[in-house]
């Protein structure tokens, strides 16, 4: 043996005599950078929501909006409190939920192409919601719609888990299954449309366009409950997700129960998806792109990636909604379309640039 292969103790001793190694400092800076990123995203989101609140088709001045927030000023007060505020909150919540659910689906299925929509979970939730709207119309209750959406999103998520568990189910297999599910549930929804009454068809179409316009306070409240309540337990499992990245067996050897984790995390992400979908319709894309954009900027530490993806999703949707309401005013462009227009170029830019050294 040559002298090149020093023993562990030699090298450890060398390390100890040096100053605090650069690796630790670099890692520390990374963590600080990521916290800063989250703070920045939160500020951007609040800022975007404030701007969104101040602009709109009715052309109320910023001063009037601010006044209406604190005092009853009649029509302006109603517009701000009954239309704009719930709508903007809904956009932020839905974006947050889709981004968060996307990051969870991606890590538990270890599949960068996973998202609420590519897995068919979104379409399934949509179908569930539509079913309730049709069969219990006109007396359907909000909670009924939410439950319908959740049950069907769970169902499709269960199919995805089963496929993922099958030996050597590749990314492609999973995504193809997801697309098949998506088509299946879209077809079923279309069938309902075909058979439904005029009134029902109207409701479905309205719903399916991906619209924030019907968001009222009750909807916001229920969506918030469904989207935010799974967040703390998911966040608490952040390190388990970090470990799951390297495979089930290595995760198991580090104290994680991969199957158990996958089960409840997918259920949680399905609940979030159902909450995001059931009152706003199908808003795709954000759930796929927000986690990727965030990951490209701050990496895959889920302590930061999950909240970061949520904030990124919220930001994209709030900006998209503001653009959708004002670009073609008084026409409102469907939010799904605008969010794609905004997200795609940003995504493409990061994809081509692909550096994350600056954090």
């Amino acid at each position, binding site marked *: 043996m040559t002298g090149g292969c020093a023993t562990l103790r030699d090298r450890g001793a*060398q390390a100890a005599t040096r100053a605090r190694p650069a690796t630790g400092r670099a890692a520390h800076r990374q963590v600080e950078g990521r916290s800063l990123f989250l703070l920045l995203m939160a500020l951007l989101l609040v800022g975007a929501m404030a701007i969104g609140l101040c602009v709109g088709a009715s052309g109320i001045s910023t001063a009037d909006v601010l006044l209406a927030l604190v005092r009853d000023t009649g029509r302006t007060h109603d517009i701000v409190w009954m239309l704009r505020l719930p709508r903007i909150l809904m956009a932020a919540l839905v974006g947050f939920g889709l981004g968060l659910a996307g990051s969870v689906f991606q890590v538990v299925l270890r599949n960068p192409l996973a998202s609420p929509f590519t897995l068919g979970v979104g379409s399934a939730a949509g179908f569930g919601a539509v079913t309730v709207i049709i069969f219990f119309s006109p007396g359907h209750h909000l909670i009924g719609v939410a439950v319908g959406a959740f049950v069907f999103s769970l169902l499709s998520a269960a199919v995805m888990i089963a496929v993922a568990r099958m030996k050597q189910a590749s990314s492609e297999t999973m995504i193809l299954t997801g697309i098949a599910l998506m088509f299946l549930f879209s077809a079923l929804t279309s069938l309902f449309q075909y058979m439904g009454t005029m009134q029902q068809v109207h409701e479905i179409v309205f719903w399916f366009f991906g619209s924030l316009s019907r968001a009222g306070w009750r909807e916001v409240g229920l969506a918030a409950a469904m989207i935010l309540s799974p967040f703390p337990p998911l966040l608490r499992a952040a390190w388990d997700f970090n470990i799951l990245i*390297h*495979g089930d*067996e290595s995760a198991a*050897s580090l104290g994680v129960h991969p199957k158990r984790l996958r089960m409840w995390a997918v259920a949680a992400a399905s609940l979030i998806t159902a909450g995001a979908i059931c009152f706003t319709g199908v808003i795709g894309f954000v759930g796929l792109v927000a986690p990727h954009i965030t990951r490209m900027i701050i990496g895959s530490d889920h302590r930061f990636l999950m909240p970061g993806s949520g904030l990124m999703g919220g930001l994209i949707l709030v900006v998209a909604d503001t653009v959708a309401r004002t670009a073609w005013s008084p026409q409102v462009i469907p939010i799904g379309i605008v969010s794609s227009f905004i997200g795609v170029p940003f995504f493409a830019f990061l994809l081509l640039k692909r550096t994350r050294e600056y954090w």
Partner: protein
Amino acid sequence: MLEARGIIFAYKGHKVLDAVHADVERGEVVSVVGPNGAGKSTLIKCIAAIHKPQEGAVRIDGKDPLVLSRREVAKQLAYLPQSLLCRFPVSVFETVLSGRRPYFSWRPSRKDVEKVEQIIEALALSPLATRDMDQLSGGQRQKVLLARVLVQDTSYLLLDEPNAGLDLRHQLEILETVAALAREKETGVLMALHDLNLAARFSHRILMIHRGRIIAEGTPFEVITGERIREVYGVEAQVTRSNGHLNVHVLRCAGEDPQTPAHGL
């Protein structure tokens, strides 16, 4: 002592391990050798409590890993899989740090970070610390994964072909590190190895398995003989001894015409 007794394991009715036993004392290096598909990885997974054997028992210092919590097991026993996935960008530092996971819940302590720094330094990985895992060569990646197992700070290590696919120097470096660990920290090491020469050189004892059964066990000189190599691997080999080292020269596939050129193992 880490011990497995009477392990029987089948994948969906297809029996892979048939009453296999293994034991490792602290400070001891034991290699499991045998041809592809012999059941080496499966045995290691059964001991690591990743697979639950249909029959037989594993004891870590007398305790049953299936009764302990996974986290408790992870503090006693570290496992290096044969292959690891990585589809998302994770830095070398983060990867190694995740080996400390059994010891913290949200924020790694200062001690955790220091341990990681020390190991990274010791394995000469510092220049790579902030790089992503997918930007490393196979040898570098394997070293990072070894570092991750080392920071886990366990009494026993299970390594599944830790030097597969590496060049000579990396192979030696990894095995030297493992040997040093056993010597200096009294870690008990059980590893699957392909290279009989390296297995002989770095192990106190060798376990040879074939078709899910233990064919031989003992010191390298006891286990690795020309006859067994012919029987288990189906190749003619000459085993010689020089300066206390065992050398296996592979000659040719057994039963073939001696004139045809020999293939590598």
